[in-house]
C-alpha cells in the first residue's frame, strides 16, 4: 500500500535526514517508527503527504508515485495526527472533526459551513468510538484536556476512512496513562477500519506494546525493521548509539514531554 524506494532527504548540503530508506507498509498494519531525536522520523512521515519532498528515491502510495502533481489526489486519502494536536482552538469540537472532510467537500459548501447530515452523523459515531460524549460536541477545542484533544484529532484523521494515517509523535505531549489510552485507540481504530498507521514514537516501551512492526531509524538509515519482539537491549543500544539505560532515556523523555511547550512549526508547507 505504501512503499519507500531508496528515499533520501537532505536539508542544505550536509544535513542528511533520510538516507536510502526502503520500506513497504501493507494495508492495516500499525508500524511504529522509533529512533533518537534527529534520526529522521518526522521527515519520513512528512515525505508521505508531501509536507517535505524527498531529495532522492520514490514513494509509492497505492502504486501511485508521490509527486507535486499527484499530491492533490493522494492527500485526501491520508489522515494525519500531530504532536500538538493542531486543532483550531476557537472552533467547536464537532467542527474540528468535520474539517477532516474538507478535501471531499466543495469550497462553496465548506465556506457556508454546510456539512451534509450523514457526515455529521458519521462524525458522531467516530466521536463515540474515540470515547467522547455528546456533551463535548459543541465545546470549544481549547476547553478540552490534552488527551481529549488528541482523541478529537484521531476522530478527524479517521473521519473519511483514509487508507493511511500518519501519527507524528502523537503522545509526546501526554502523560504515560493517557499515552497508552491514545495508542490503544489508534491501534483499535486501525484494526477496525483496516487502515495502515505509520506512527513515530519516542517511547520504546509503547512501540513494543502497541505496534505490529517497529522500524528504527538511526542517522536517517533504517537500523531495525521487524516485530517488537526483536527489540533487545543490544539492538536498542545500537539504535540510540548509547550503551546503557535506554529504558531510563525513554522514561526521561516521557517526563520531559509533559512540560508544556509552545506549538512549533514542524514542517513548512510545500
Amino acid at each position, binding site marked *: 500500500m505504501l512503499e519507500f524506494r531508496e528515499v533520501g532527504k537532505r536539508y542544505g548540503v550536509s544535513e542528511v535526514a533520510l538516507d536510502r530508506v526502503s520500506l513497504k507498509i501493507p494495508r492495516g498494519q500499525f508500524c511504529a517508527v522509533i529512533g533518537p531525536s534527529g534520526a529522521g522520523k518526522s521527515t519520513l512521515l512528512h515525505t508521505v*503527504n*508531501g*509536507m517535505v519532498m524527498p531529495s532522492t528515491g520514490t514513494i509509492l502510495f497505492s502504486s501511485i508515485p508521490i509527486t507535486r502533481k499527484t*499530491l*492533490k489526489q*493522494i*492527500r*485526501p486519502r*491520508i*489522515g*494525519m495526527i*500531530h504532536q*500538538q*494536536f*493542531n*486543532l*483550531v*482552538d*476557537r*472552533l467547536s469540537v464537532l*467542527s474540528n472533526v468535520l*474539517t*477532516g472532510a*474538507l*478535501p471531499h*467537500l466543495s*469550497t462553496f459548501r*465548506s*465556506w457556508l459551513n454546510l456539512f451534509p447530515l450523514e457526515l455529521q452523523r458519521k462524525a458522531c459515531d467516530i466521536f463515540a468510538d474515540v470515547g467522547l460524549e455528546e456533551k463535548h460536541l459543541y465545546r470549544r477545542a481549547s476547553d478540552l484536556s490534552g488527551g481529549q484533544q488528541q482523541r478529537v484529532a484521531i476522530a478527524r484523521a479517521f473521519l473519511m476512512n483514509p487508507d493511511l494515517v500518519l501519527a507524528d509523535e502523537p503522545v509526546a505531549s501526554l502523560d504515560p496513562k493517557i499515552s497508552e489510552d491514545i495508542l490503544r485507540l489508534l491501534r483499535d481504530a486501525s484494526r477496525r477500519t483496516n487502515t495502515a498507521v505509520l506512527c513515530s514514537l519516542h517511547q520504546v516501551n509503547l512501540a513494543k506494546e502497541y505496534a505490529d512492526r517497529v522500524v528504527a531509524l538511526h542517522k536517517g538509515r533504517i537500523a531495525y525493521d521487524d516485530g517488537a519482539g526483536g527489540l533487545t537491549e543490544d539492538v536498542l543500544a545500537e539504535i540510540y548509539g548509547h550503551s546503557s539505560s535506554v529504558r531510563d532515556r525513554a522514561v526521561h523523555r516521557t517526563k520531559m514531554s509533559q512540560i508544556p511547550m509552545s*506549538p512549533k*512549526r*514542524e*514542517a513548512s*508547507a510545500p
Partner: protein
Amino acid sequence: MSARSIKEEKECPPEKWRLRHPYGWKTVAILLLLTLFLPFSARRVDVYKGLRMSAEGVADASGIREDSSVGRGWRSFFDAAFPLVLAEKTAVARIENLNRERLPRFSTIVKEPIREYDLASGEWKVTEEVEYLVEPFGYLLRVIRLMLDTVEIALWGTILALLIALPLGYCSAKDYAPYGVLYGLARGVCSLHRAIPELISAMFFVLMFGFGPVPGILALGIHSSGFLGKFFADDIENTPPGPQDALRCIGANQLKVIRFAVLPQVMPQYLAYLQYILERNVRTATVLGIVGAGGIGMELKGRWDLSDFGHVSTILLVVFLTVLLLEKLTQRVRKKMM
C-alpha cells in the same frame, strides 16, 4: 548556536561567562539623540509657549492670577455654552402652509416685538410684532436626526472599508498572496489609503459627487480600509501555523484553510478592529460635514461660525452620548459573537 561555540562555552567556567549589560551603546545613543533633538524641536513647535500659557490658565482658574489668554478663550465659550439650546424657533412667515389649528406637538406660537432705535426721540420703540413657532425640543430633535445621518454615514463607510479590506488583507498577508507582485501592490495600496486623511479625500469626493453623504462614505471607507487591510493581514500572518498545516496536509485548498484555520482564530481581533473603526468613523464623520460631506459637521461649523455656543454644546453633548452608546452597544454585540 554552532556546535563549536557550545563546546567553547562548556570549556569556559561559569564565572568567566560574558554577561550582557542591560543597556547597550545603541540605547545610550538613542537617548542622547533624543535629549539633543527634543529641546530643539520643542522650540520650533511652541511647546514652551504652550506650557507657559497653560500654567497661566491654571493660575487664572485657581484665582492666583486675574486674567489669562487661555482663561479668556475658555470663558468666552463657557459663558455662552449654557444653558443648552434645545428649542427651535422659526419665524412663522418663513413656514409654508402652516396649519394653525394643528401645530406640531408641544409647539406654540409666540409673538415677539421688534424694537428699533428712534433717533428723533432717542428711545427704543416697538415697530412691529413677529410671530415665531417655538418647538420645545425642536433643535434637539434636529441634532439627533443629523447625528443619525452621521452614524449611517459612518456605518456605510465601515461596510465599504470591510469590503475593500478583506481582499486587500488576504493579498497583503505573506504566504497567502497569490503572487509576490500582488503582495507588494496590496501592501502599497494599504499604505496609500492610510496616508490620505479623510478630510482631504472628502474634499476631492465633494468635487466629484457634490455635497451629501456619498463623499463622506467614500472618504471614510477608503481611509479605514487602509487600516483594516493592514490589521487583517498582520493577524493572518500571526495565526498559529499548526492548524493550517493540519488542514493543508490532508489536501484542503487555501480558501478552506482560511475559512477553517484562520478566520475562527482571528475573528475576535477582527471584531475588535471593526468596533474601533466604526467608533472612529462616527467621530470622524462629525467633522467631515465641515467640507460638505454630509452629517452633523455642517451644522456644527455653521453654529460655531455664528458663535451660537449654546447650540454647539447641544451638538457636542449628542455626539458624546452617541459615541458612548455605540461603544456600549458594539461591546455587547462583540461579547455575544465571541
